[in-house]
Structure formats: structure tokens, C-alpha cells
């Protein structure tokens, strides 16, 4: 018998069977010190295991366990449909898991409700903001158009800018309504409005007002810096000038 065969045959035996090996295995164990040493270890282990088994064979649970179980059996006899209650040895977090689970559901539901409430409020505020601002903006004075000597906030008209106000025709119509009669400008001889850069373009739905005012002539059509030029400016609902046009002085 080779060492490999010895190991193979020993692997199929239980620890108790190794205590009484076959003749071939004994012969090989005597010839091979390595396998003999291994067999000695296994036999020593089997003897120790038997000793331990014999010493603990009589150990069993105390009578108080049986009494407690019978008391429980009388109270709760095999209810298969009943949910398993946490027993006394379960950790406290395990016992409270159901409570935490319900709490988590409630917290998620509350978060959803609060989120919906805030969303609705935000939408309402947005929908109300534009009309309120348009109502609070000063109405144009068609009979006496405001004339401002200096308008430092105004950017010089960018004549090369070709970005037009989206609702140019609507603005022009309003302009005609607001100041056309006073200024005596007809739509036909009206030069085009020039959109100012760096401003949000007006949309068709936003309110705008057209105000005729004097603006510095620098960069416009005048020759001298001190001169002013009459212009119609389109003021958005937020007070920012969006577009302007130079009024023909001959018509003014």
C-alpha cells in the first residue's frame, strides 16, 4: 500500500473506524513514519473524542426549561398562523424592529406629504408673482410721456445688434396705443427697435411698457457728447430696458 492509497482509504473512514484500522493500513503505518504519525494523531484524537463524549453524554437541559416550555405550550399551543413573537433572548433592537419599520413608513409618508405641499405652494407663488408685478409696475402716461435727462443705467443703443425683440410687433402696437397719438408717429415711419444685449429677451406673454425719454447721444447718431437723443425704450416688467429705438427728430 502506498501513502496515497493509505490516505485515500483513511479518508473514507470515520474517526471511530480509524481507531481500529485494517491490517494493510497498520502494516503501512508501521513502515511509513509519516503515515504512522498521522494515524497516531487520529487515534489519539478518537480516544480524546470518546472521552469527551462520555463525559458530556449525561448533560441535558435543566427541569426549569421543560417547565417553561410546557407553560408556553399551554398558553400558545402550535399556532401556525400566529406571527412569531420575539423571544426573551432576542436583542432589544430585534424586538423593536417592527416599531422601527412602522416608524420608517410613517416618516416616508410624512416626507411625501410635505414635499407635495411645498411643491404646490411654490407653483402657486410662481403663478401669482408675474401678475402682481405687472399690476404694481407704473402705468405709462400717454398724455405726458416721461422725459429723463440722464439715464445712466441705460446701455448705449447697440445699433449693430440684430437680435430683435421677440414680440416686436406687439410692443409696437402697444407703443402706438400708448404714445403714438402724442408723438404723432405712425407705425409705417417707425424705425425698428433694437434689442439691448445682456438682457433676457421678452416673451410674448410678458408685459412691457414703452417710455419716451432722452438718452445720451454718445454712440448713437449725434455728433457731440453733450447732446441727447430722444428715444423710445421698452421697459420690461422688471424695470430693465430691453429695447430702444431712436425717434426721428424731424418728426418730434
Amino acid at each position, binding site marked *: 500500500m502506498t501513502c496515497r492509497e493509505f490516505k485515500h482509504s483513511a479518508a473514507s473512514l470515520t474517526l471511530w473506524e480509524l481507531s481500529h484500522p485494517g491490517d494493510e493500513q497498520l502494516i503501512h503505518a508501521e513502515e511509513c513514519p509519516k503515515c504512522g504519525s498521522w494515524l497516531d*494523531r487520529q487515534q489519539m*484524537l478518537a480516544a480524546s473524542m470518546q472521552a469527551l463524549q462520555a463525559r*458530556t*453524554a449525561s*448533560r441535558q437541559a435543566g427541569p426549569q426549561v421543560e417547565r417553561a416550555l410546557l407553560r408556553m405550550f399551554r398558553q400558545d399551543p402550535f399556532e401556525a398562523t400566529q406571527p412569531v413573537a420575539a*423571544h426573551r433572548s432576542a436583542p432589544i433592537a430585534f424586538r423593536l424592529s417592527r416599531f422601527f419599520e412602522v416608524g420608517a413608513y410613517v416618516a416616508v409618508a410624512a416626507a411625501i406629504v410635505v414635499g407635495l405641499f411645498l411643491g404646490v405652494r411654490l407653483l402657486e407663488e410662481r403663478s401669482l408673482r408675474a401678475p402682481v408685478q405687472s399690476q404694481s409696475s407704473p402705468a405709462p402716461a400717454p398724455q405726458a410721456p416721461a422725459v429723463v435727462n440722464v439715464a445712466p443705467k441705460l446701455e448705449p443703443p447697440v445699433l449693430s445688434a440684430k437680435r430683435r425683440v421677440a414680440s416686436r410687433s406687439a410692443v409696437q402696437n402697444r407703443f402706438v396705443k400708448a404714445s403714438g397719438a402724442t408723438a404723432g408717429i405712425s407705425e409705417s415711419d417707425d424705425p425698428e427697435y433694437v434689442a439691448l444685449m445682456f438682457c433676457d429677451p421678452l416673451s410674448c406673454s410678458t408685459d412691457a411698457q414703452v417710455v419716451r425719454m432722452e438718452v445720451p447721444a454718445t454712440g448713437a447718431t449725434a455728433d457731440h457728447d453733450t447732446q441727447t437723443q430722444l428715444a423710445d425704450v421698452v421697459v420690461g416688467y422688471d424695470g430693465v430696458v430691453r429695447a430702444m429705438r431712436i425717434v426721428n427728430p424731424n418728426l418730434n
Partner: protein
Amino acid sequence: MLTELTDEQLLSQALDGDEDAFTVLYRRRQGPVYRFALHMSGSSHVAEEVTQDVFVFLIRRGRDFDSNRGALGAFLFGVARNYVRRSLERNYSDAMVNSSADDEAHALVIEDDPGDGIARRQTSTALWKAVLSLPEHYREVVVLCDLQELTYAQAAEALGCAIGTIRSRLHRAHDMLGKKLQHSAAVAPGRVSRVTARCAS
């Protein structure tokens, strides 16, 4: 009469509310369950707690047992294994393993027959400590197959793994235990000669 019934028959009667059947079943099966937990944990306190938990589980979830999937004994060992593992994970019994293993070993010495050899007691104590120091998946196969004398098939049912796995784990565990015992014997040379002489005889 009841003692002649199989475990499954006793459980069936207990499920119908027969307290005597439950008592017989408990008395028949509590010892192995207790000893399994004792060998696994090294603590009689944990062993009693696990035994109670296993039968509480049987009271509450006894209808979950399916006899087609295995014997009731293996089922109870499987439940006990889970409770032992949970108990050891709770960490309080880890400390008890170290301290109470000595207590249990000391109790064994006291219970011993005075005529029994000192070497036998020492080797069994050393073996138990070696078993407790094994990794859990090796320890449970040693306890089930060597100390509880379950067959490989029954151990495989209890642990929910293949028979080949049981066999290989057991082989590996025996090697580890043999080396541990040899090491502990080398620490106490006087013990070696006695044990070796005993094994040789």
C-alpha cells in the same frame, strides 16, 4: 405508548394540542440539542437558552416542518445551529466561551470517576478547547459527526450542505484538531507519554 411513536408522529400529535406528545418529544430530543449547543458554545448557560429557543421555535413554527425534506432530529439541529450562531454573534457568549469553557471543563473533572486517569481528563479538556477554537463550520461538523454521532447524510441535512462538503470539512477539522492536540501535548510532555501509551494500548 407515546414513546413508541416516531418524532414526526409525536410532532403531529403535539400540533393537535397533545401536551403529552410534546413532553415525550422534548424529553427525547432535548439532550442532543443541549449537548450540541454545549459543545458548540462551551457554555451551559448558552446551551440551556438555545435548547429553550429551539423548542419555542417548534411550538410556534412546528407546522413549517416538512418531513419530506428530512428527519425532525436534523431539523432541530439546524434550528439549534442558527440559534447558537446568533448567540455567539451577540458577543456576550464569546467571553463566556473563554471563561466558562474552563468552568465546564472543571465541572467535568469534578464529575469524573476518581479511578479515571488524569491524562484522560486532561486530553478531553484539551480537546474541548481545541474544538472551541476551530472555525465555526469545522466545529459544527466535528460536533455533529464525532460527538453527536450523526451520519454524514444526517449532518448534511442539518447543515444544509452536500455530503462531500461534510466529509471534506471533517477531514480537515481532524487534521487541525490532531495538530492542536499534538501541540498541547508537546507543551506538557508528561501528558504525551501517557496519552500515547493509552492510544497504543
